[in-house]
């Protein structure tokens, strides 16, 4: 499972409207999802696995689908329908789970730990719940052998190694591997092969279950964070007492007595 997101290194916020200026921002594949795809491709390298990439998004996510094929995926399906628009993490998980179900048999579902544009980390685990399968989250290393997935999970106080029978969903840590490059040969083949675009009918969901109508989250209010005023000042040693006084008066520093 992958998602196309605005390039976080290039996010430009319009200081007047406070909106994310998407005309200047380019769209890229969520970086943790690239690690998820790489983890899947490494298993494909060692077995005869078939890798299908699934995403939900607008038609412009085409570039991400082609990119995943160019890195080595066998098939790419984009769930794309105007009814899917405005979804929070609940119908997003539902839509992806339904898409995967419609594809048929699977052994392992890989997802990035979270996306860089909303950072919830909900969607992977949500899909596992909708499909009623086990899940391994925050995996840094994933191996497959004889119907079992062995994964290392990075925890705060150490590394946990778990072994789970398939089918299983694994969310993969950002930077846990080095995604392979797209080559010109693969990219040409990917463009020729093309990806599939599935609407709500093909996915098998009613319009009222998905998108903004299927989303339980209601955003009541959003406000921009007011930036604190900052200033730089150059003083010589003699000026320090005055500076301390000024900072004290402005409440920037305070004196604590014991």
């Amino acid at each position: 499972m992958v998602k196309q997101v605005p390039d976080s290194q290039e996010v430009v916020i319009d200081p007047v409207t406070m909106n994310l200026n998407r005309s200047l921002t380019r769209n890229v594949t969520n970086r943790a999802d690239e690690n998820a795809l790489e983890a899947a491709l490494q298993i494909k390298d060692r077995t005869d696995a078939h890798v299908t990439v699934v995403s939900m998004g607008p038609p412009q996510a085409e570039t991400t689908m082609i990119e995943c094929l160019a890195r080595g995926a066998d098939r790419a399906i984009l769930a794309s329908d105007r009814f899917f628009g405005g979804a929070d993490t609940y119908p997003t998980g539902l839509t992806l789970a339904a898409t995967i179900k419609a594809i048929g048999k699977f052994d392992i579902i890989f997802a990035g730990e979270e996306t860089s544009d909303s950072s919830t980390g909900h969607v992977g685990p949500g899909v596992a719940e909708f499909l009623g399968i086990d899940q391994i989250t925050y995996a840094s290393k994933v191996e497959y052998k004889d119907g079992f997935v062995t994964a290392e999970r990075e925890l705060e106080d150490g590394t946990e190694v778990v072994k789970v029978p398939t089918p299983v969903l694994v969310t993969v840590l950002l930077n846990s591997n080095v995604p392979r490059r797209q080559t010109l040969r693969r990219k040409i083949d990917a463009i020729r092969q093309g990806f599939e675009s599935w609407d709500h009918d093909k996915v098998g969901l009613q319009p009222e279950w998905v998108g903004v109508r299927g989303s339980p989250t209601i955003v009541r209010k959003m406000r921009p964070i007011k930036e604190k005023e900052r200033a730089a000042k150059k003083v010589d040693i003699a000026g320090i007492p005055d500076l301390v006084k000024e900072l004290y008066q402005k409440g920037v520093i305070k004196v604590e007595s014991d």
Partner: protein
Amino acid sequence: MSEFDVIVVGAGPAGSSAAIKMASQGLKVLLVERGDPVGSKNVSGGILWGNDLAAIIPDWEKSAPLERYVERKVTSFLTGDSEIAIDFKTKKFQEKKTGYSVLRTRLDSFLARKAAQAGAMVVTGVTVDSLAMKDGRVIGVVNEGETITADCVILAEGPNPRVAMAAGLVGKPNDRTVGIGVKHVYKLGENVINERFNLRGNAGFAGEYVLSFLEGDVYAGGFLYTNKDTVSMGVVINMATLRKNGNTHSFDIMEKFAQHPFISSLVEGGQLQEYSAHFVYEGGYEDMPRAYGNGYMLVGDTAGFSFSNGMILQGMNYAISSGILAGEAAIEARKDNDFSAESLSRYQKKLDNSPAVLDKKNFQGISNVVWSPMVHRAIPALLESSLYSMLYESGKPKKHLSQIMMKSLKSSGMNSKDLMVQGYRLMRRM
């Protein structure tokens, strides 16, 4: 049997124009660009002169992402305290447009989209490593050890053509053939731009400056162009003089230009949106490589097509016209089923009769004059001190212009014979 008729390396104006031309005539074209999105690696000052796009996109003036048309053209000398300028404004440019300011990320993306619409396969984010050769002819391109075959490869790599250089098709850039360009884009807002540059509607300002106030003998030119709500400003630095002054950095020169009293007032309060640097092709007619060979053609900056005569800096228009001509040559070669050097020499013949080559030929040696001490030091100093002497009311009896100029000439450190000779050369070369 090759996989493609033609592979084009580089989706700048030259490469995309060639791809549009060929794909619209049914050729199987692959356009490869390392930047993603298209245009993100490309830099130019930003004025597209002329009407060359009309041949492949008839409605380009309506459909292309153009910023403003040039109505006001300034050619200026900047000294430490002064600006002496020719400020040419004409409503004639409103009826007959001569040039438009453009932002390359938008323009180049637009042209690549047009190529895809015409039927070319456009691949971005992938770098071609080298040319695939067999029996002394180009048979395709190589990426990550894999060969993609084509009957012909068009190299549109810009002024630092790695693939063409590695194959020995062009020489390495040297101090004479390239300069350094540094560019910033500042957001000012439409109204502020219109007020500061005395413009209305989508009329635009294009200024080119001789930066005569730089320390040492570093020669550099500045440019300032208005876009819809941003300005593009930058410098082009002569490589040879920069190298001689090891302590000078390109970004310092950019900073000094931006801080000049009569420039800073124009861009004050602007919000920096983009910064970039790039080689600028400066080679003359004598530096131009042969633009074709067995199974390949060179277009745009890679073939040496950019031009400056001191008044005007052009590149994109030649890039487009050379791309179209290479496209035409490929279409004819496809009909004959012959992509040998002999067959592709028709491209050179087309070029030889086009402004792209004729301008370079007719203005041979111009760069020696443009990058001369006369233009960069003596003339600005002479003009400044003469004008200052004439205009400052000292309360003393006035002197004749000739007397003032002779005195200024003496203080400029240039002898009158040199000035006469070089001035004559300048007039002839321009």
